[in-house]
């Protein structure tokens, strides 16, 4: 079987298209690359949706944690503590068995016990908590001068936040937020090893890498391929976040702009 046919058969295997049976013996390098690459679709799906939706909740949470009213502050603090203080792995297990229980309450909750919805919700809440802590830290370190300038212009309330505080927060937080996004993409590999079932062997990249490593009993081929895909993905994320960073800092002189670099000092 040529490599082209393999790609036709397995490129969208993780979504359920193409050949139904996974290869069982005589694995070729092409099959390794195609299957693991097919699984990457799920990693990208979880990562992109969780980052985009998590971003909005994270902003809300950061503002709530920064507020003077304890009615807003306390829930935000507890939410962030809950999701940052416990392992994502256990959160997945807990959520999955919780969703299974909910399923017996009403059929409305049915999708939650499958990975595409249930795991996405956990990842969304998780990344919202981590990002909120980053945004909160940035909100706290807005230079006093910026706020005084806003006051001098007569800006108050929403317009002060929208026009002065929020852009500065994003500028300060962006390098750390880039790291968070990268780690979130890494964390998506936990989905199918932590309770959520890979229905009809439709799994993510790690699921297929593990399948191949278990079948061939040779970890030296599938895992480096997985690593290759993830390093590629990391570079793509850095590129996109770098573009946004450039736009955020477009008013600054060239020499004062900070570049987004993969500097994982603060990690999840």
């Amino acid at each position: 079987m040529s490599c082209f046919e393999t790609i036709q058969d397995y490129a969208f295997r993780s979504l359920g298209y193409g050949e139904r049976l996974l290869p069982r013996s005589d694995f070729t390098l092409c099959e390794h690359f195609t299957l693991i690459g097919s699984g990457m679709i799920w990693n990208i799906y979880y990562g992109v949706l969780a980052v985009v939706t998590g971003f909005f909740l994270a902003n809300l949470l950061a503002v709530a944690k920064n507020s003077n009213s304890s009615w807003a502050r306390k829930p935000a603090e507890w939410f962030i503590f809950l999701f940052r203080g416990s392992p994502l792995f256990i959160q997945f297990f807990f959520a999955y068995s919780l969703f299974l229980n909910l399923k017996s309450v009403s059929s409305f909750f049915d999708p939650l016990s499958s990975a595409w919805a249930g795991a996405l919700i956990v990842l969304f809440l998780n990344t919202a908590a981590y990002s909120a802590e980053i945004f909160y830290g940035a909100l706290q370190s807005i230079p006093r001068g910026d706020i005084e300038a806003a006051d001098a212009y007569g800006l108050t309330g929403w317009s002060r936040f929208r026009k002065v505080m929020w852009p500065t927060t994003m500028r300060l937080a962006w390098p750390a937020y880039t790291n968070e996004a990268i780690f979130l993409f890494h964390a998506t590999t936990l989905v199918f090893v932590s309770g959520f079932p890979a229905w009809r062997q439709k799994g993510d990249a790690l699921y297929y890498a593990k399948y191949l490593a278990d079948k061939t009993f040779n970890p030296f081929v599938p895992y480096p391929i997985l690593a290759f895909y993830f390093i590629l993905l990391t570079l793509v994320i850095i590129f996109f976040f770098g573009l946004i960073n450039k736009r955020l800092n477009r008013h600054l002189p060239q020499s004062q702009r900070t570049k987004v670099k993969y500097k994982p000092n603060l990690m999840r």
Partner: protein
Amino acid sequence: MRSAIFSFCSDPATLETFQWMSCYLTTGKHMAFYVSFGTVLLLLAFAAPSALLFGFGGAMAARARFLPLNWLGRGYIAIVRGVPDIAFFLFFVIALDQGLEYLRHKVKCPDWDQPIRQGNDFIVCDIAKLPLGNSAQWIHETYGFALAVVTFAIVFGAFAANVLYGAMQAVPHAQIETAEAYGLTPRQTFWRILVPQMWTYALPGLSNLWMVLIKATPLLFLLGVEDIVYWAKELGGSKTANFTAYPHPDWRTQYFLALLVFYLAFTKVSEVVLNRITTRLSHGQATLAGEAQRKTT
């Protein structure tokens, strides 16, 4: 089945809720569950210092003037950090096992002529197996645990190397120049000037790393060690009266909730302790935190 702790546990079906619970929570399997919390702490006790050691080595390599060593250090940090850690855990557990068996095979059975990889099998001679096929159960468990510790050390060593490398760079350059002016050799400068001063810069990163390490311990489950996740799954699953004296429906949600609470408490306590250490260590240092302390007192 072990004998029960409370005398009234002989016939659980007749008991009231409170007594039933106290019997249920003291069965032999639950005792194993409680002991597995010790496994997690033991893992941390071994993995944290060895990761620090790996990290120190990695940071030293990344600073080395000798280019291949420099590349090795930087490559180690970059690759381990760029790839999901679970992939590394799953990889190293098999790779280390096969690597060790391969080495022992080469030493112990030099006149073995068949290939080691035959199709989908990895075949070494019997006396090269690790652990040996006839060894006791506890040796198997210890070997599995040791592999897990080494894997944690390699993965988190890269995280630590990154932190320590940054800390070494953060020590004010004037300190190094002064040491050179006094005629200290590079080695003396490193051990007497750089290393004692870098810890205050490394501490925030290392505290963060400790939290990450705590939150990575449930991954032991993936490495085949019978840890708290294993027991929570095992004990939480629904039990029928045919197989146990304590039948109950699916309680996994409750068991995982208990694990969540355990981890939340653990990270909270760590945070408080680490904050105290940071405050104490920044006392009298020429950093912002040290300066802030000087002004308040």
